[in-house]
């Protein structure tokens, strides 16, 4: 069983962290993952940087630009990750835009993921229907979980459909927004969390976008299986590099 599904079965709320591979330094990738695991993080999203990350806010955009300047490429990332499973055992997900994956070759990419021990993919601009028609069998062949997003605007019918084709968790975007643009949850969002909770989907939900503090983390895990932190962690990396990751994580989940 895929590490993601194992983790989702554990009787525990999950804290997952996103970072951009190759940031702040090109070779920080492995050390960041190792430090995150050591700090008790349950799952990591490794961002494959893209020149035009149109679902991301300024913080993640800037980290992607820097990572690319540092020389990060798809091949480099796989090279960096090739021994990752020697030291890390939590689930690892690559999150990236579709174009770099398409250029690498979707099958070649999936194959590489399996080789280095990646458990799943989040490709925000790969639509559900295109995935279903063209890529589902490939993902499955390489035992990759594909994670879909839902937002407060996603219709109930569509959520049902997404749930039906999900083989891991659903990434629940806390509000319709790019990454890093929220600073806490309002009533609308809590209502949305509740609404989804009561839908009793087969796939667990993990909430992302807008989680940056212990308070927002706790709100999220009241309703969902877990939460993902992105921009807040990138800001930490920006100011402190790979040091004190433990302290950052303890602030969120003491």
């Amino acid at each position, binding site marked *: 069983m895929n590490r993601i599904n194992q983790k989702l079965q554990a009787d525990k709320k999950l804290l997952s962290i996103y970072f951009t591979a190759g940031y702040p330094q090109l070779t920080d990738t492995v050390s960041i993952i190792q430090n995150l695991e050591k700090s008790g993080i349950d799952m990591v999203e490794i961002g494959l940087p893209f020149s035009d990350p149109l*679902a991301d*806010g300024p913080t993640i955009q800037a980290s992607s630009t820097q990572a690319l300047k540092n020389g990060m490429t798809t091949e480099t990332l796989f090279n960096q990750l090739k021994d990752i499973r020697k030291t890390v055992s939590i689930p690892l997900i690559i999150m990236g835009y579709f*174009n*770099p994956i398409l*250029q690498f070759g979707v099958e070649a990419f999936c194959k590489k993921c399996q080789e280095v021990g990646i458990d799943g993919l989040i490709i925000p*601009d790969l639509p559900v229907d295109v995935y279903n028609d063209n890529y589902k069998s490939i993902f499955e062949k390489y035992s990759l979980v594909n994670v879909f997003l839902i937002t407060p605007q996603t219709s109930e019918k569509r959520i049902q459909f997404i749930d039906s084709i999900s083989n891991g968790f659903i990434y629940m975007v806390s509000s*319709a927004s790019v990454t890093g643009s929220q600073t806490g949850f309002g009533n609308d969002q809590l209502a949305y969390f509740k609404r989804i909770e009561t839908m009793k989907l087969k796939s667990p939900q993990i909430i992302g976008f807008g989680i940056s503090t212990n308070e927002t983390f706790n709100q999220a895990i009241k309703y969902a299986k877990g939460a993902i932190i992105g921009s807040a962690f990138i800001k930490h990396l920006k100011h402190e590099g790979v040091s004190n990751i433990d302290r950052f994580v303890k602030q969120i989940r003491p």
Partner: protein
Amino acid sequence: MTYNINEKGYYGEFGGAYIPEMLYPNVEELRLKYLEVMAEPDFQTEFKALLKNYVGRPSPLYFAKRLSEKYNTKIYLKREDLNHTGAHKINNTIGQILMAQRLGKKRIIAETGAGQHGVATATVCALMGLECIVYMGEIDIARQAPNVARMQMLGAKVIPASSGSKTLKDATNEAIRDWINNPVDTHYIIGSVVGPHPYPDMVARFQAIVSEEIKWQLQEQEGNPNPDYVIACVGGGSNAAGAYYHFLEDTNVKLIAVEAAGKGVNSGESAATSSLGKIGIIHGSKTLLMQSKDGQITEPYSISAGLDYPGVGPLHAHLFQSGRAEFIAITDDEAMEAGLELCQLEGIIPAIETAHALAIFKEKPFQPNDIVVLSLSGRGDKDLSTYNNYFNI
């Protein structure tokens, strides 16, 4: 071979809607409704009336006597420069603002490169009393200053895009981000035949008025609705799409698409997508785009802000791949000379985008009896300082 979009939103293998889930409801709403809304008699009546009484259509099909003499062929210029706001862009924004109203939207966003689409959007927003936000690359803000001033006069808010190449591609990213952040009340008026389905088809349909007019105008002037050639510059491809639209299936009408070679196709500073691009995803569409081996989108370069885009609409990718259109790349220098030549032969100052199309007469010979229609997509008022600096006038 068909050149129409299929039901899944593809031209051949190009097109589709590669969008994050956050955009799904908006794009899906549009996809489900655009054809139906456009077919409503009330929509058509209002659209046609505004094109006539506000935009000033039909735009003339002008036989350029001195230019024709110089190049020993029969050149007609389709005068989109005479439209209100000075380019073809307004055909589309009129259509989209009526669409947005029928979808109940209250807030309009747009990206712009040359500023013509931004001005055209600000214009229709003022006309309808809707809030308007325009994203524009920092470099474009500097080189198309008159258009920035116009947008502001019209009450629009112009927000600089400072990421990436600070041009059209980045402004588009910013507009998409805005739309993600404002999913309910906002309509995004894309300015070319790019973006996720149904935008390329919808924009092409709004621009199709151009070839619709060319047909009856040529019938009137030449006794035959079909020219031998239709020539247009291609940034995203909307003026070309409009000029080609009703000729797409008539394969005896040859189509020529002119791209910006910048400082030379192989100089590393270019925006010649068909020569340099490979298939990929940009701004929600599968199409040809300039990119690194790794799939990072290349920062394009052209002296012309409206052509300074690393992709091309999916229709054009299809026209290129199928050979239906011939693609020619024109350098900055060739375009600037052709722009000046039109000024001095015909008394028309073309947009630098359009000047690229005009430059093909020096590149490609035509027969004396060929009827060549060129889409004069916009006027050059916005480009005066670029022309001046270049020619030291």
